[in-house]
Structures are given as structure tokens and as C-alpha cells.
């Protein structure tokens, strides 16, 4: 095995072009587990720790440009206002030790259907900026996940930035697991209100081969809010609307039975999370946010 230590981004791209099978390692929270357990023995490890810009972020007009290696702990501390859904999800990743190392770039690179970053990125709206010596391209996050632990990156590409749309309304994230820390999501859910264009985006994790947006549920609730004039009236959401939204999110799932839980449970839990989180964001939007239905922060 060879340990490649590029000093900057150009060197990293050159190394990846020269060794397309090299495994990029940033925080190491996924890659090192595979090495420790001998599940993977790559010819080359490509250490990205010295590439400074991957640890940086920039808040723009409409988007946050997030460096691929920015650890979850920084997102929680520094980007809670701009990226509330992602910050909530980041807070449920692993433990403090993991959040000091793990990053959204790593989540995208691993492309596990259970990655906690994926639902909030899908709900907020995001593009992955990948680069190689051949050039740069921006991939809508919806197109990034291509299968279980598979993504749209070419062999010579590295993730540089994730462009995430800044929140213009409330966002929520919920996740099912056996405790509040060190839990791989049994299933996860994110919802974002976009008051400026009066739409709702919703996304599900760990309940299909890839994370996905619940388009039918989004269209239903976006239309229902408009038809009933709820954006203008600011009235509470009817229970029937919340229930139907939950059913549509459940129905969009294509889960499996595995060690963490059954497909049936996942489908049910996604419906419950969808109903509750939509209620929370709408209440927050109305300025009458109540904590009646839990909403406890995960450790």
C-alpha cells in the first residue's frame, strides 16, 4: 500500500488521475473501519487532510459553498442558521469524536443509503461539485446517488465543494435508532419549507437502495397548501393533510429487512417522521412553534 499525501488540490487531482483506484481519506471514520477490519486493501490511500480549501466554507447569496472535508462539528457550530436541516442531521452523526473528523464529503463519497447528510441535502437543494484533471462539473444531489454505496463520481474525480441552498424557511430532520448517539440510521427523514416559491421538499434516507426525494408527497403538500390558501392564512395544517403526507412518504419507500429493522417498520416510521416533522416546520413557519410532540435534540 502507498500513502499519498498531496499538499494541495492540484496535487490531489493529479494523484487521483494517476491512481484512479486510490481511496480518498479525509476524516477516516468510514475508510479506517474498512482497513482495520481488513474489508478493504487499496493499493493507494489518498490523504486529503493537507488540502486546505476542503476545510473551508463560504456563505454566498443563495448558496453555502461547503468544503468536502468540513467536519460535522463545524457545521453544527457555524452553519446552523444557513443550513438548519444539515446541522440537525450533523448533530446525530456518531459521537463528538466522530463529528470532529467526519464530513459531508465523506458521506457523499461513501454513498451509504444510511448517511445522515443525504436527506437534508436533498430537502434543501444541493449540488456536488466534482473535479478532475479533465475539468469541473456540478452534479445535482438527486443524481449523485446511483446505488447502494455507489455514486456518480468518475474514477479520476474528487468531491471539492457541496453547494447547498441556504434556508429561507424552517427545516427539520428526524432519525430512528436505538439511542441518541452512535447510531446508524434505521431510517431518516428531512423536510424543508421554501416559502419564497411556496414549495416543500422532503427526502428519505435508509429506506431504499439510495436516499431519495419523496416527489409525490412534495407535490401533494405543495398543491394542498396553495389550494387551501394556507401560505396566506397561516392557519394550522389539517390533520388529514399531515396524515396523507405521511402516507405518501411511506409509500415512496422501498426498504429491506436487515439487522437494524424490518422493511415494514421502516415504512411505518418514515410515515410518522414525515407527519411530525412537517407539523414542526409549519408551526415554526407560523411562528407558533411548540415542542408538544418531542423534538428532543439528539446527542
Amino acid at each position: 500500500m502507498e500513502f499519498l499525501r498531496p499538499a494541495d488540490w492540484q496535487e490531489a487531482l493529479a494523484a487521483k488521475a494517476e491512481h484512479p483506484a486510490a481511496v480518498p481519506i479525509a476524516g477516516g471514520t468510514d475508510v479506517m473501519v474498512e482497513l482495520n477490519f481488513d474489508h478493504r486493501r487499496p493499493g493507494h490511500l489518498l490523504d486529503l487532510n493537507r488540502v486546505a480549501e476542503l476545510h473551508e466554507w463560504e456563505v454566498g447569496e443563495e448558496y453555502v459553498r461547503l468544503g468536502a472535508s468540513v467536519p460535522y462539528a463545524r457545521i453544527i457550530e457555524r452553519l446552523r442558521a444557513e443550513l438548519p436541516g444539515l446541522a440537525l442531521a450533523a448533530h446525530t452523526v456518531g459521537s463528538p469524536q466522530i463529528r470532529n473528523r467526519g464530513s459531508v464529503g465523506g458521506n457523499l463519497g461513501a454513498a451509504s443509503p444510511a448517511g445522515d447528510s443525504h436527506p437534508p441535502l436533498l430537502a434543501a437543494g444541493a449540488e456536488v461539485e466534482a473535479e478532475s484533471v479533465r475539468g469541473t462539473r456540478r452534479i445535482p444531489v438527486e443524481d449523485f446517488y446511483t446505488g447502494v454505496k455507489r455514486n456518480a463520481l468518475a474514477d479520476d474525480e474528487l468531491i471539492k465543494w457541496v453547494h447547498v441552498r441556504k434556508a429561507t424557511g424552517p427545516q427539520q430532520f428526524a432519525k430512528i435508532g436505538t439511542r441518541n448517539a452512535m447510531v446508524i440510521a434505521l431510517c431518516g427523514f428531512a423536510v424543508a419549507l421554501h416559502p419564497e416559491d411556496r414549495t416543500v421538499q422532503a427526502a428519505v434516507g435508509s429506506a431504499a437502495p439510495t436516499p431519495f426525494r419523496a416527489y409525490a408527497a412534495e407535490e401533494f403538500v405543495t398543491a394542498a397548501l396553495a389550494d387551501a390558501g394556507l401560505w396566506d392564512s397561516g392557519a394550522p395544517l389539517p390533520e388529514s393533510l399531515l396524515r396523507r403526507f405521511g402516507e405518501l412518504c411511506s409509500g415512496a419507500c422501498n426498504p429491506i429487512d436487515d439487522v437494524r429493522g424490518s422493511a415494514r417498520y421502516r415504512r411505518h416510521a418514515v410515515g410518522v417522521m414525515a407527519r411530525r416533522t412537517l407539523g414542526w416546520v409549519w408551526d415554526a413557519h407560523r411562528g407558533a412553534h411548540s415542542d408538544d410532540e418531542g423534538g428532543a435534540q439528539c446527542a
Partner: protein
Amino acid sequence: MRVTFTVNGRRHEADDVWEGESLLYVLRERMGLPGSKNACEQGECGSCTVRLDGLPVCACLVAAGQVEGRDVVTVEGLADYAARREERAGNAEFAGSNANDPASGAGSGASAADEQRWTPKGAGPGSGTRLAPVQQAFIDAGAVQCGFCTPGLLVAADELIERNARPSDADIREALSGNLCRCTGYEKILDAVRLAAARADSGPAGSAEPEEAR
């Protein structure tokens, strides 16, 4: 490959490091610092927690090559680290009370020989040994049973108190949420962290019980 980095204030070099090796393996097997424990090797248990450039991380998930030129603190260096922190805070008196050996004080760090010789000797628990306040609090609160999780908990708890002098129970639970203990049921560990925080908060002497702090 060769990896050179700072451990507990002192420059260390390790040769013939395998490229896929973890920082934990280098510390334990190549540098003779077995304080950081090897249990799950997947970041679940926190028993290998060390400070990497100040941040608590699982040493089992850091590739050895990634620490080149960086700064690591392990439980073996925790007493020195805490003492130096107090000195930096201009609290020489407190640092003195925790550093029986003034020669190894400011900036120099523990020597490798010191680290490897570390053993809790003396008449009673902790006596005759230089301890970080959080270590003394773990002894005083009875927060150590089999002791396997203790080094990781000490490093995590020390970092919590460093950045949050008056942690709430929720703060403590969150800070220690990545450290598993299978013996104590955590209650005495929480007691120990509360005790360490109360002592640190009660002044430079660092010896006041929580009651006396009021």
C-alpha cells in the same frame, strides 16, 4: 513509512509504519504508550480517544500518515497537559499543586520514559502520582471499575471541562456519548465529571468540594 509527530509535548518518530496503520496502533505498539485502549477499532467505544491538534478523536480512525507533523495528547500526558493549561491561564499555584515534579513543567512535556513508566503507585489511590484534576475526580468518585474505558473517558471529560467550565448534565452526557462503559452504569462517571468541573470552577486551589464552592 516513517511518521514524525508530537505526542504529549515531545517529538516522536515511528519507523516501518504500515500505510494502512492507525494512530492507535502506532501509539500502543510502536511508541509503548498503551494508555489509549484498543477495543472496537470502529469508533464506537471511544476507549482510544486522544486529542489531535486539540480535538478529541478516536485514534483507531486516524491513519498514521495523517498525523505527520501534528500534535497528539494521550491519557499518559493528560496530567502534564492539564498542568500546562493552568500555567497558561496564569494559575501557577494550581499547576504547582498538580505537578510534583516541577522540572517537567512548562512546554517540555513528559518524556517518553516518564510516560512509559507511568503507574499509579503510592499509599492510597493517586497519592505520590501526578494526576490531572479529572483523574483525581474519577478516583474520588469511584468512577473506575475495570478501567478499560477510563482513559478515553478522561480525555473526553478533560476536554469538556476545558471548553465548558460549568457543564450541565446534558452537556456531560453529550460530551461522553461516544465513550462506552460496560461496568459502572455511568452514574459514577457523571459524578466524577461534575466533581472535576465543580473543583475547577471553585478556584485555583482546585481542592474545594462542590459544597464549599457556594
